[in-house]
C-alpha cells in the first residue's frame, strides 16, 4: 500500500462530536464562571509566602540577634524575654507556611481538575 492510499484511508477517519457538544460546553462554561473559587484567584501564594516569611524572619532576627534591650534606643521601652518572643515568631512563621501550603494545595486540586 503506497502513501497516497494510506492518505485516502486516513482521510476517512475523522470523528464528529455529538450534536449538543457546543451547547453543553457553553453551559459548563457558565457554570464554571459562577462556581470558580475566588479564594484561589484572589491570592498569590508565592508572593504572600515570600513577603510574610521575609517579614517574620526579619522581625525574629532583630529580636533574637540585636537583642530586646536595644529597643530602648528607639524609646519603645519594650522588655520582652527572648525565648517566648522567638517561639511566638516561629509559630507565626509556621502558621503562615501552613496557610500558604493549604492555599497551594487548593490551587493544586483546582489545576489538577482542569489541567491548567
Amino acid at each position, binding site marked *: *500500500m503506497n502513501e497516497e492510499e*494510506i492518505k485516502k*484511508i486516513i*482521510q476517512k*477517519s475523522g*470523528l464528529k*462530536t455529538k450534536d449538543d457538544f*457546543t451547547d453543553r460546553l457553553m453551559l*459548563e462554561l457558565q457554570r464554571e464562571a459562577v462556581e470558580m473559587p475566588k479564594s484561589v484567584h484572589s491570592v498569590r501564594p508565592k508572593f504572600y509566602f515570600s513577603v510574610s516569611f521575609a517579614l517574620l524572619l526579619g522581625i525574629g532576627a532583630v529580636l533574637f540577634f540585636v537583642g530586646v534591650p536595644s529597643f530602648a534606643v528607639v524609646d519603645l521601652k519594650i522588655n520582652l524575654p527572648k525565648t517566648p518572643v522567638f517561639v511566638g515568631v516561629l509559630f507565626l512563621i509556621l502558621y503562615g507556611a501552613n496557610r500558604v501550603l493549604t492555599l497551594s494545595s487548593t490551587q493544586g486540586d483546582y489545576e489538577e481538575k*482542569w489541567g491548567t
Partner: protein
Amino acid sequence: MQAFRELVDAHKDASLTLACSILKDPMIAEDAVQATFIKVYQKLHTFGQKSKFSTWLYRIVVNTSYNVLKQQKKFVDLDAVGNVQEITDLGNGNSKEQDQKKYIHQALDALKPDEALVLRLFYLYEHKITEIQEITGFGKSKVKVDLHRGRNNMEQELKKLLGNEIHELL
C-alpha cells in the same frame, strides 16, 4: 461568548479526532475535548499569536489527552482490557461507508497513541512535520519514525481486518 462558540464549532471535530487517537474511546475523548475548551476559554488571553490558533489549541488537546491517559493507566491496564472500542459516532453516510469507517477506526485504535496521532495530523489535517513537532512536542526523528511505523502498522491491521478486501477502502 458568541465568538468563542464559533471557534468551538470550527475546531471541535478535529479536536475530538486527535483526542481519540490518544485515548481510543470517543466518550472519554469528548470529555477531554470539553475540558480542553474550558481551559482554552480561561487562557485565551495568553495566546500570543506566535503560532496558528489551531496549532496552539491542538497542543492543548494533545497535552490534556495524554494527562487523561496517564490518569487512566493508574487504574486500568489498557492492554489487558483490549483497547479497541466501539466507535459511537462516525458521522453521516451509508452503511458501507459506516462499515469502512469502523474498520479504519479499529485499525487506528490498534496503533500506539503516538503513531495514530502523528498519522492523523499528517494525512488527515495535512500538517507539516514542524507543525506536528510543535503540536506534539515530539522531536523530528520521532515524528518521522512514528509516521513510518504508523503507516506499516496501519496496513498490517487493515490486512488483518479485511484481508484482500482492503482495496475496497480506496
